[in-house]
């Protein structure tokens, strides 16, 4: 969708990411998804009288990882606050969150636009909070069920500046955050299970207007597609309203994915006053340098840095470098193979080619790849040293994949697949073939060079593919005096 001339759009996203910790943020209950309702809600999650929260250090560690990943500032002292509102799936009647002193302040990510240009999107802050439970409205016709399994699941709310100028930038940014969260093992990124949810703040203004327009917040978008559709609808709605001389009211809206429209949920006037105040049950969390140093040491190289390293020091083409560095495990596999084989470009071709296509075929992750980098390196070694032809290598790879081969070299040996580069073995074959096919031999000699392939093919057939085609070529030329 193009933004109509004369208008500009400002979008900021709030991304709620569930942190992939074993236990909840303030209790020891499990965070596993999909168990029987209320089976993993302990007294703390249920908001029983007299219970107290206790901060799960693992959640803090994940938040710090993210903060370091976006080059944000880690607050050495952060604090929790209570956000008060009533809802059946909010057991305590308040959510424990971070208002004044969030764990991460500032930071940025770089997104690539469709035209290939890059843009830096600034992050305002990222704070820790607890997720609410779920209200189940289709439980019984006249009743609502409450499932508190999700209550207390750690969330990192990542708030961006209104740097996003259209839906595709918003989606690119959301994907970049999604990528980073999963790359850093902060969040499992499973959108279907609600591990990542977006709130979009959208406003429009005339191109010459300096102040931001009146914004609407679209809550709880749980896929990239809904995010895009909701933004499209909202831009159109706001511009249409203003163009027709109407006035926009700041409000909170919900997106209806069936009708592809947003609907007002509440206006600014009726907005809840959350009455934030410092959580008296928790002390401010002080982080020492050693905690941050330990996390820094455990941080993987970020994909952007890794891609440029693949490009500059391993000599990969840009596209290959980005593809291979884009997924942490894939990058690890490639890098191991490149190191073991000493052939980065060849390794890249194998990984992005045969390996990835087989993985896709069987819907597997690189971590589930049946051929280890060590086994692959041995195969690559055989091709480099011309022990096997490219074609044979593919067959050996298939055998390794299917588990028919223990190692490339034993398989090649056992099946006699070594490339025959011995002229004494090939020469008699060529002489024999020229005698059997005099017509073709004459035509080739007369300049019908296509027939070269005919003879090479015959030799390959006779040697079950083990002959070195290059060598067959040379022998033919020599015999025919070409």
């Amino acid at each position: 969708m193009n933004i109509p001339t004369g208008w500009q759009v400002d979008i900021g996203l709030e991304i709620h990411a569930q942190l992939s910790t074993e236990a909840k943020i303030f209790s020891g209950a499990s965070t596993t998804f999909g168990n029987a309702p209320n089976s993993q809600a302990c007294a703390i999650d249920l908001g029983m009288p007299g219970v107290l929260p206790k901060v799960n250090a693992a959640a803090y560690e994940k938040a710090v990882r993210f903060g370091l990943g976006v080059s944000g500032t880690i607050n050495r002292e952060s604090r929790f606050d209570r956000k008060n509102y009533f809802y059946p799936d909010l057991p305590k009647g308040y959510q424990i969150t971070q208002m004044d002193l969030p764990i991460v302040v500032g930071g940025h990510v770089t997104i690539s636009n469709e035209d290939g240009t890059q843009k830096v999107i600034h992050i305002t802050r990222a704070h820790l909070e607890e997720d609410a439970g779920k209200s189940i409205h289709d439980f019984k016709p006249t009743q609502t069920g409450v499932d508190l399994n999700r209550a207390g699941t750690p969330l990192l709310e990542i708030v961006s500046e209104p740097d996003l100028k259209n839906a595709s930038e918003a989606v690119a940014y959301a994907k970049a955050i999604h990528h980073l969260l999963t790359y850093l093992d902060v969040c499992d990124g499973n959108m279907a299970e609600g591990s990542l949810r977006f709130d979009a703040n959208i406003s429009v203004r005339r191109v010459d207007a300096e102040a931001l327009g009146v914004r609407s917040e679209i809550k709880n978008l749980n896929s990239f597609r809904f995010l895009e559709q909701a933004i499209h609808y909202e831009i159109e709605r706001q511009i249409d309203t203003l163009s027709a001389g109407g006035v926009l009211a700041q409000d909170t809206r919900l997106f209806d994915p069936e009708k592809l429209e947003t609907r007002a949920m509440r206006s600014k006037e009726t907005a809840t006053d959350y009455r934030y105040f410092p959580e008296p049950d928790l002390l401010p969390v002080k982080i020492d340098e050693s905690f941050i140093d330990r996390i820094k040491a455990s941080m993987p190289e970020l994909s952007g840095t890794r891609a440029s390293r693949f490009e500059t020091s391993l000599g990969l083409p840009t596209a290959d470098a980005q593809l291979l560095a884009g997924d942490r495990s894939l990058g690890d596999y490639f890098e191991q193979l490149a190191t073991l084989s000493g052939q980065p470009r060849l390794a890249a071709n194998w990984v992005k080619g045969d390996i990835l296509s087989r993985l896709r075929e069987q819907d597997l992750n690189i971590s589930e790849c049946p051929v280890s980098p060590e086994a692959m390196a041995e195969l690559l070694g055989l091709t480099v040293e011309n022990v096997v032809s490219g074609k044979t290598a593919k067959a050996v790879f298939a055998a390794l994949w299917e588990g028919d081969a223990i190692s490339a070299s034993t398989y090649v040996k056992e099946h006699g697949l070594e490339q025959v580069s011995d002229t004494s073995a090939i020469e008699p074959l060529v002489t024999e073939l020229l005698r059997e096919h005099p017509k073709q031999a004459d035509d080739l000699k007369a300049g019908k060079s296509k027939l070269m392939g005919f003879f090479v093919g015959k030799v390959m057939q006779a040697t079950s593919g083990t002959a070195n085609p290059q060598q067959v070529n040379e022998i033919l030329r020599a015999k025919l005096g070409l």
Partner: protein
Amino acid sequence: MNLRSATIAELRAHLDQRKLSAVELTDYYFERIDRHEPTINAYVTQLRETARSAAVKADKIIAAGQATALTGIPIAEKDLFCIEGTKTTSGSKMLADFEAPYTATVSEKLANAGAVTLGKTNMDEFAMGSSNESSYFGPVKNPWDTSRVPGGSSGGSAAAVAAGLCVASTGTDTGGSIRQPAALCGLTGLKPTYGRVSRWGMIAFASSLDQAGPMTRSAKDAAIMLEHMAGFDPRDSTCLTEAVPRYSQHLDQPIKGLRIGVCEAFFETALDATVATQIREALSILESLGATLIDVSLPHMTASLGAYYVIAPAECSANLARFDGIRYGYRCEDPQNLQDLYTRSRGEGFGQEVKKRILVGTFALSAGYYDAFYGRAQKVRRLIKQDFVEAFSQVDVIAGPTTPTPAFGLGEKAKNSVDMYLQDVFTIAASLAGVPAMSIPAGLVSGLPIGLQLIGNYLDEATLLNVAHQFQQTTDWHTLTAPEAP
């Protein structure tokens, strides 16, 4: 021995010498409960069965010669400590039928120490009150004069000990809820340093102020109880990690040379003249024991009541939001929709005083008012803390009255909140600062007990208890017992 006036220490000797068994002792208290409880109304729940089995177990431990200080000692617990499988009401209709699914750290520690819990004591609803009249389970009567209040909010805990319906009890103190009823019922009551005792399982009123402590017949008993209640608990993030001293082993230090601060502000305000005289008398006794009285000033103390009545309601407005009729507790009949479920469950489940404080707290935290109320109150709180830090650089203990008057009549202040709130005018500052403070019997005024308040430095409960014990070695106010209720 006269069981009626016996202390934990005395009962210990009797139990260990096998002069009576823990079961007999438990029976003795339940007989007294049968006789006096209809008048006093100190208990919400009596735990006869579990008490008996705990006593039987205690007798075995005693017989095996493995008794410790609290083995077989019959106590009562304020009804806001959760005990698994036991009704825990916090004095409210909201939780009238609530059975706790887990046990509070304090209750667990006392049970593990062999104490026999006779029952859960009556209290002001959600610990909000200074007279025990806001309880859903009816007011508690002061054993010294049953037409008067026992104080609050730990009124049931105080009356139970004073009426001889247990030997010691647990209370909680947010602004004076241990010290004021202890004073009004002639007991020794100690509010420890904030964080000294775990709050896990204690139904919250105001989280940053709530602190559990003992209510006993002597300073020595308070020391014994505190030893078993205090200590680090990983389940409470605000709990302090410092090791717990053996308070009861450090009660015999002479107080010669001890610097006792006297803050004249305590004597200027609402203090009753007769009470003032009695407190001055108590101070001179301390002086005669060799202590030096030194004037100290707590310049921001006058602002403490105002700050407290912003901070405590603000915290309670959030703490009590969980009582919404959804998961447990009172739910209104036939709710029409969610809003109706909320408003009627809370409207019908909470009493007047609780609702008033929730409203005050909600207002104080509202957008546009936060800075003027909550923000300013927190500033006052910091100044008060500073006052105490300053004062304790000059003195070891601060002494003064616990309450402005002795016990007042039932219904006397119920209509006037501010009058009621003034009951805590001397106790609140220590709560805001988080320093330990205790009340010990300091005489009778018109036949009613009054209390001397001793305030100590952070984590210096040992000094407080020692001073109190030394005072009790030369006075006998703490040994007086209330007349037997009809």
